[in-house]
């Protein structure tokens, strides 16, 4: 039998380091993911996401630091069937149908989901009797997802799961994922797609050059890089006067419109309306995750110089 996973800790990474020859892929990652959370590891290619995931799955041994999954060493968590994984690369073995492959994988786990149910939820039922070698890239990817899902694990680890999928398949995939996450499972997925991380994760862990450079809800991460801008139409007032408003860092005039870069957009908005009641067509914009991302990576690189 298997031991029930601890409810307090899902994944705990401590001082994790890993080098491949001269390449320091992971340079000291500390991360705690409580059970039940959906977390995105977001970062550019080569950031160390896959290496981190390999260490969580027990596929790579850390040079330094520790990994605990539900309080267990990765190999034990895997052996007890707590982890279902979808690796970034890899195709399927030959000479089996999709259904047979899912059935075979299910047989390895202590509490698998019913095979037919998984075929339905992953939209693989239509080609379940086809041989694994006759599938398109997108179909193969769905089958690989089915293999991770049929394990009915407490932790799902997905390394760039939608890389080979088209837009529609992507949406399908995430709707299934969301249902899985709502079922109380811990989900960790790696992606370099900012929108995916933003839309589907409770929390984003931003990874670059082998380190965690930001960690929090996506709104928090955006706030970290200077928050929002206010776009307002206000023809008579000079930009320099607007720059002195509370919570405003700088003001820039574009014809009748003014753009205010804010450290605190709420305070700036109140002050603006109080002093300049004629302001109209006001728009508050959050910095895009893309901008936040680029800025954080740049800051980290500067700091480490």
């Amino acid at each position, binding site marked *: 039998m298997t031991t029930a996973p601890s409810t307090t800790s899902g994944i705990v990474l401590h001082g994790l380091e890993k080098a491949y020859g001269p390449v320091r892929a992971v340079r000291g990652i500390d991360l705690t993911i409580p059970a039940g959370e959906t977390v995105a590891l977001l970062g550019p290619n080569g950031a160390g996401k896959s290496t981190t995931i*390999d260490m969580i*799955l*027990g*596929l*790579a*041994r850390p040079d330094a630091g520790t990994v605990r999954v539900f309080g267990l060493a990765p190999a034990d968590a*895997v*052996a*007890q*069937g707590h*982890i*279902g*994984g979808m*690796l970034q*690369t*890899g*195709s*399927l*073995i*030959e*000479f*089996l149908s999709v259904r*047979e492959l899912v*059935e*075979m*994988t299910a*047989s*390895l*786990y*202590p509490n698998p989901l019913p095979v037919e149910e998984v075929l339905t939820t992953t939209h693989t039922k239509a080609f379940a009797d086809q041989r694994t070698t006759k599938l398109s890239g997108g179909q193969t990817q769905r089958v*690989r997802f089915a*293999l991770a899902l049929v*394990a009915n694990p407490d932790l799902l680890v997905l390394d760039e799961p939608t890389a080979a999928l088209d837009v529609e398949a992507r949406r399908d995939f995430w709707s299934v994922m969301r249902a899985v996450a709502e079922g109380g499972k811990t989900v960790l997925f790696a992606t370099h797609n900012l929108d995916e991380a933003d839309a589907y994760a409770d929390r984003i862990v931003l990874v670059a050059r082998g380190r965690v450079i930001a960690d929090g809800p996506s709104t928090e991460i955006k706030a970290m890089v200077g928050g929002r801008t206010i776009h307002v139409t206000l023809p008579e007032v000079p930009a320099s006067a607007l720059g002195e408003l509370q919570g405003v860092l700088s003001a820039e005039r574009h014809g009748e419109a003014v753009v205010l870069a804010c450290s605190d957009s709420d305070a700036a908005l109140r002050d603006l309306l109080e002093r300049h009641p004629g302001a109209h067509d006001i728009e508050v914009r959050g910095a895009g995750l893309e901008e936040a991302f680029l800025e954080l990576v740049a800051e980290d690189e500067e700091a480490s110089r």
Partner: protein
Amino acid sequence: MTDATYLRFEIIRTFRNRRFLLFSLAFPTILLLLIGSSNRHATLAGISFPLYYMTGMASWGAMVAMISSGARISSERQVGWTRQLRITPLRTGSYFGAKIVCGYVMALLSLLIIYLAGMSLGVRLDARQWATMTLLILIGLIPFAILGIMFGHLLKPDTIGPAIGGLTALFAVLGGAWGPISKSVTFTTIVKGIPSYWLVQAGKAAIGSTGWPPPEMWLVIGVWTVAATGLAVFVYRRDTLRI
């Protein structure tokens, strides 16, 4: 949780792989039928040629079937499937175990076909002789089972075919599976240290007076099994840690 389902699918996969079936089963049988039928009434080393040749082809065929089974790990590594399996609760030992069981199934099938071919050439043995010969060959296959797993981790799919083909041919020639080898004392001493020699002898011993090969066989098989296991563990560790 059981590995029985996994094993069942491994065997199914083996039987659906027609090319693999053809190459590991057909060659020894075809050779036996071709060479055996044209020498049907000849004798070699005191026994009838078809019988002599059948024991040689039986040991060669079983050896090819066994090594090839383990070597299939190579293509599973190539497509990343072994990494996928390593994140499931399937133990490495069970994975190798399934490959060895498949190897034995294939080896038995190969023996059966070669025995039938032999019988069609007039070979007649009593039940005890058939059983002893089969049992001894199966025991003699143990080091080849482990060598197959080792090659599966050592070689890439595009080189493993020729490598296995060449190696099993070399083992077969040196072991005397393809016919009598040099009678020189030094040569015989060296060859007696090779497991394929005893694989061939296993077949012949069953026909002979005692029915059992000398203790040397167990020693050679034992030493090769231990050595191959050590090498296989080393190669496996190197392979899995690098990734």
